[in-house]
């Protein structure tokens, strides 16, 4: 068996690829549900209901989608330029840490600045912290050819340990009964709720606005062209005059800033303070979302809602029919693989023998 490049790509195949991928994913996951001894139809029904079936379910899904949209965008921007930023998790945490450092109630008071100014300062600090964290690996890649997959991945662990140090040390909340937890954010700095009685907050609008901005930037700006050109063919981009180092730095700053904002918005919108288990791997899931969205910034909006819905829905489904919540990870992973295979099949055909 081998792959042969298709002479032309049919538009219908391109449109049907995600549908087919989803169908295949559900089929594969159904086998696992069956194996766990639960009725497939009911399990999927519960999953759908738990993720999207009520205002509450939808609000939970959207709440979960907020950080995922931002880390998904971070991965999208970086991957478009072939800068494989696996460090969004770490950038998210330094962003959250910077947000708390600027906007936290240190000693019960915090910085005495007007709220709007402090809010802008907090978000800027978070974005900058994420950006600076990625700058090192990006420069090392551009100048010395150091593999950024390794450096960004390993930085995640260093950052987590650093956050742990801060949460047990200078930034520890004295009123948290000894738990490693940061001081709380000033109340005026927290994001307001979008829907009363739910957890979904205005961070959703931030995330979606940023998705549109990133899309416009990538599509219509010179820098966006530079990024796409560099990712598609670095030699040709260099020949055409794309400033390679400058573009890599820009991509790193943008990607790191988006991941840093994810951390700040999570603190300001959902938790109010920082703990070491704030992110259940949002940084890594962002990579999956970027791939599911085939590196399209607007696709990230939908992919993150899909993934968040599966994660939230699987929680309630597992409680009802006794399928482990890990089924959510399986579904997300299977859908990623299916989408990758389906999109390749639109460009290649399989020849048996």
């Amino acid at each position, binding site marked *: 068996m081998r792959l*042969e490049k*298709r*002479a*032309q790509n049919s538009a219908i195949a391109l449109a049907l690829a995600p549908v087919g991928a989803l169908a295949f994913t559900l089929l594969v996951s159904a086998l696992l549900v069956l194996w766990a001894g639960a009725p497939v139809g009911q399990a999927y029904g519960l999953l759908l209901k738990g993720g999207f079936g009520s205002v509450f379910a939808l609000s939970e899904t959207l709440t979960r989608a907020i950080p995922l949209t931002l880390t998904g965008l971070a991965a999208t921007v970086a991957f478009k330029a072939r800068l494989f930023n696996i460090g969004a998790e770490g950038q998210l945490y330094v962003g959250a840490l910077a947000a708390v450092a600027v906007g936290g109630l240190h000693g019960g008071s915090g910085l005495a600045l007007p709220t709007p100014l402090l809010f802008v300062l907090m978000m800027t600090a978070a974005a900058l912290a994420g950006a600076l964290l990625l700058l090192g690996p990006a420069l090392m890649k551009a100048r010395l050819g150091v593999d950024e997959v390794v450096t960004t991945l390993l930085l995640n662990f260093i950052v987590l340990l650093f956050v742990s140090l801060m949460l047990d040390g200078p930034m520890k909340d004295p009123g948290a009964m000894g738990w490693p937890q940061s001081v709380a954010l000033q109340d005026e700095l927290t994001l307001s709720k979008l829907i009363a009685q739910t957890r979904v907050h205005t961070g959703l609008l931030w995330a979606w606005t940023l998705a549109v901005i990133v899309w416009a930037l990538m599509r*219509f*700006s*010179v*820098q966006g*062209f530079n990024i*796409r*050109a560099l990712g*598609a*063919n670095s*030699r*040709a*981009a*260099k*020949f*055409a*005059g*794309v*400033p390679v180092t400058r573009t890599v730095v820009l991509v790193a700053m943008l990607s790191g800033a988006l991941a840093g904002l994810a951390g700040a918005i999570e603190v300001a919108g959902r938790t109010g303070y920082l703990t070491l288990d704030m992110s259940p791997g949002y940084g890594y899931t962002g990579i999956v979302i970027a791939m599911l969205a085939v590196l399209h910034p607007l696709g990230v909006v939908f992919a993150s809602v899909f993934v968040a819905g599966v994660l939230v829905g699987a929680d309630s489904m597992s409680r009802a029919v006794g399928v482990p919540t890990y089924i959510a990870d399986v579904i997300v992973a299977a859908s990623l693989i299916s989408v990758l295979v389906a999109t390749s099949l639109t460009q290649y055909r399989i*020849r048996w*023998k």
Partner: protein
Amino acid sequence: MPAPVLKLSHITKRFGSLTANDDISLELYAGEVLALLGENGAGKSTLVSILFGHYTADAGHIEAFAKPLPAGDPKAALAAGIGMVHQHFTLADNLSVLDNVMMGSESLWQPFTRRGKARAKLLDVAKRFGLSVDANARVGTLSVGERQRVEILKALYRGARILILDEPTAVLTPQESEALFAVLSQMVAQGLSIIFISHKLGEVLRVSQRVAVLRAGELVAQARASETTQSQLAQWMVGRALNPAQRHPAQNVGEAVCVLDQVSTAPARERLNEASLTLHRGEIVAIAGVSGNGQGALAQLLCGTRPASAGTVTLMGRALPQKPAQLVALGVARIPEDRHEVGVIGDLPLWENAVAERLQSRTFSRFGWVRRRAAYAYAQRVIEAFDVRGAGADAPARSLSGGNMQKLILGRALVHPQRDATATPKLIVAHQPTWGLDIGAVDYVQRQLIAARDAGAAVLLISDDLDEVLTLGDRVAVIHDGQLTPARPALAWSREAIGLAMAGAGKAIGQAMAGAGAGIDENERASA
């Protein structure tokens, strides 16, 4: 007539609506060289890929040595005694010749490789066919000609009795080509059969006994080499009579545009080593040489992608800027060697590729945002002016054929961004501009270069194709190991002298010719 060693019957292969091979039947006999002649895109590569099992034919079948050859199975092709020497070598640079030859033919399940046995067999094969090579040498240290020999040895080592050579002379000096032809005739004399793929008419007649001509997927003619002529072959190949390439000497050579003085680049795989050259308005200076001798460094230097480490480069009397965008703004038109990998960004649409070099300029962007309408209009102008045929400005550039891709690159380099401006570029740097193009496209590109020269551009043409160098060049210099011979009028060079200079005897020749008083004054040009 004896039975054929290879028999292709009614081979048909379609890619979508394109019929790459249309009902081709062909036979190969023991002890002959069959040349497969055709333009790029005529279906030569497809046919060979089917033969070697890389593609499966939609119809037809193949017999090798009177046994049917299973379709789509490269291993079966190897086992049947079919060997292939690709144009781009498939050798590991960091391994020795012996390792490269053994690679893939040893079983994975035996605990140790049998090097002693393999060495003996390799030396035996090498001796039998007159292919001398050092079995212990690392491939990375070998010349291109030697690497090609290793590729041939690899095929013979595996017991190939039918050898397919894909454009084997494209990378060789004239002398190396002659050596290759000698090896081929020795192999044929020992009963091997060879399929020689080429689009060079002269060498096809020189090396083969029979010629099969493909055009647009069809086998249009077969002839004995002794009974046909170059012009006949060319007519079959392109379907119409062609005027043989003619020299169009420069008429108005003006002031110096670009001067290289003792320029070196930092050591790398290839480099420039104290090269000096002057390019004048209205002339084409052609650089001949075996590829890999510094042509890339020279082209990149003038394209703004590689800095000089010593010496000076001036453009219009000022130091040459280092950035591609600045060069383009100053009127340097750049045509890179590898149009697929360097010339265009295949995944991006035509229109973005058309403006890629000038996107940083005010014409096509404002406040960091692309002026889409202006960019699109410019792309349309390039497409129209240079007859770029494809699926339109929004199609990805990789969908273009090689010829149309080159027209796009040529077009964006030569079409001025302001609509009414008729300004020609000051300097054109063309590196292998016609490589791999079909005859029609070659002719088109060459005419464009000549037209630009006549309009006052200084043209630097770097080419591996000696015919092109001698036909287009008003002056010719030879590059070897990063050093340039003095540029002399094209007619002052004999083929032998160029061949020797390409092999590294350039200095002596340059001095000898300087002694003969070769200059570039107008009288000589007129006599050219």
